[in-house]
């Protein structure tokens, strides 16, 4: 067989050369030396790229022009402050409200030019694709659901942002918009408060067998702090009422009257006993007649109680007492 081939090669040397060349070329192809390799396209583009081809003229892809999308409207959230009333409940986990998008953000559409060059013919095919940003939901960090429990009198804050996800993250990255901090200010309404002052009241009665007497005089200011949210900030009001207390001894046949004046009032207001009688255990309460006054908080707010005593003499007459000390008590309301 080999002798026959050599004879034929001697007779047709050109045919032999062609066969050898063809065999060599096919060998290279099968061993992969001349196989086109796919390469990731680069946003910068420009350089010829091999392209998978099924024929022997590989195409090359380039991206000579890539324009990423740009944010043209950063948008806005509906609010960055929530004043919340938890209605007197304490230590209660609650679901915090979330801001929405008052203005939806927007971005100009980007583009990417793709050129495909056929190497054999050197024909270039060009096409243009768009690249967009898609905005998702608002993101909070930390997540408000992690605020548990939500306590009155405290503020809770989260960083708020939104992400525009790129439609072609190989060429254009996603972008984030920050909306700063969102704060949840938690209130507890209707807090009952009280403050009191006390003094030993010295009184002198020009009455037979009475003279100098000591009494306990107490003024208690009771008030309700009524917080409420007045967008965007909180407001609070005070509901005021006052009580004065005097030890009412059964053998002291005096009449104790009391007036009361808040610092914002121009004249004192009379107080009356809470109970029908003026005989009672120590701490008989008097209440300002004009109770339940609503005022805005103000500096220097106080209440002043002023006691007046009259001794009821055995003959039915009354002798006003000279109050030397302790007749006036001022209590600060905060």
């Amino acid at each position, binding site marked *: 067989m080999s002798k026959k081939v050599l004879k034929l090669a001697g007779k047709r040397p050109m045919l032999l050369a062609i066969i050898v060349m063809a065999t060599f070329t096919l060998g290279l192809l099968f061993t992969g030396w001349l196989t086109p390799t796919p390469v990731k396209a680069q946003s910068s583009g420009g350089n010829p790229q091999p392209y998978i081809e099924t024929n022997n003229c590989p195409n090359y892809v380039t991206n000579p022009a890539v324009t990423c999308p740009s944010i043209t409207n950063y948008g806005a959230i509906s609010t960055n402050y929530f004043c919340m009333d938890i209605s007197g409940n304490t230590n209660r986990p609650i679901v915090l409200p979330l801001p929405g998008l008052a203005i939806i953000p927007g971005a100009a559409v980007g583009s990417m030019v793709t050129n495909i060059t056929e190497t054999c013919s050197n024909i270039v095919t060009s096409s243009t694709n768009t690249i967009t940003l898609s905005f998702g939901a608002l993101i909070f960090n930390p997540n408000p659901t992690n605020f548990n429990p939500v306590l009155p009198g405290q503020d809770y804050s989260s960083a708020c942002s939104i992400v525009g996800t790129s439609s072609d993250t190989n060429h254009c990255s996603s972008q984030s918009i920050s909306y700063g901090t969102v704060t949840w200010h938690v209130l507890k309404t209707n807090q009952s408060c009280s403050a009191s002052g006390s003094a*030993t*009241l*010295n009184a*002198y009665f*020009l*009455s*037979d*067998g*009475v*003279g*100098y*007497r*000591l*009494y*306990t005089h107490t003024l208690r200011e009771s008030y309700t702090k009524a917080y409420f949210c007045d967008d965007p900030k909180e407001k609070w009001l005070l509901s005021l009422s006052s009580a004065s207390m005097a*030890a*009412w*001894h*059964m*053998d002291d*046949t005096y*009449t104790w009257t009391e007036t009361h004046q808040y610092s914002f009032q121009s004249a004192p207001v009379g107080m009356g006993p809470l109970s*029908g*009688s*003026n*005989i*009672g*255990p*120590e701490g008989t309460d008097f209440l300002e007649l004009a109770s339940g006054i609503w005022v805005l908080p103000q500096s220097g707010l106080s209440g002043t109680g002023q006691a*007046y005593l*009259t001794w*009821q*003499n*055995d*003959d*039915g*007459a*009354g*002798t*006003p007492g*000279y109050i*030397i*000390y*302790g007749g006036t008590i001022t209590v600060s309301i905060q």
Partner: protein
Amino acid sequence: MKLFKRLLVHAIALLALNCCLADSGPTKHTVSVNDHVLQITLPGEGAAPSVVQRLIAERVRRAIIDLTVQKSNITVSQETLSRCMDLYVVAGGESPTNIVDVVAARSAITIEALRKVVVNHEDKNDVYDKYLSRVMPHSEWETWLSSNNSIGKIDKLESLVPHSVNDLKRFSQESLRRDIEVWLLFHKLTKEVKPSPEEIQSYYKEKYPAGTPSFSEVKSEIENEAAKQTRDVYLNKWWQKQLAGSKIEVPAEYQNVSELIKITPNTPFLPVSITAILEKIN
């Protein structure tokens, strides 16, 4: 004899009631406590029924307490009274000299104003505006006038004005003596009345059902409050017992004062400096 006394009391009460209806001035009422007859003069015209009831109730209560003090043989020596008075006049935070000065000065201007109206017949409002408008409310001036409408009453008033610390003590000692006597009575009644450990724990659980703060944190507060509550309960029972054993007669129209009479009496207010002495002598 008792029936006669009772009839007499009722007769006096009826007479007093008739006087009351005929005259708009101060009215006299007669009540009796364990057959001790009390003449009670009450403000007449303008006195609210609640005021009248209170005054009647106070006098009745006072009479029961006084009788109990007498039965208990509680007495206050002059030495103890003087010692307590020395403490009493300084316990209010003012110096006795200053008290005398204030009372004398205010009395001088009040008595002068009263004389101008009662003796010189000057207009009461003019006198008030000129002398007293910065010293007392107008209603107080009216009270002074209504109760001192004669020269004799103004002279009496003037005799009660202290001009020295000794006067101050002298004019005040009777009311202090009574405070001390009543204080000693209530102290004697309740000094051995103390809450049991179980009652203290029960009080704590009632006040702090959640268990916070812990008992050890508020032990002192709880013990004091529980002790006061126990004393109050004891005194209330004692008082209702006294009332049940007393014969109290009041005019028919004031029968409802019984509700006021039932209220547990208070322990008179005395400064700690005085109660410390009284606890030692009893």
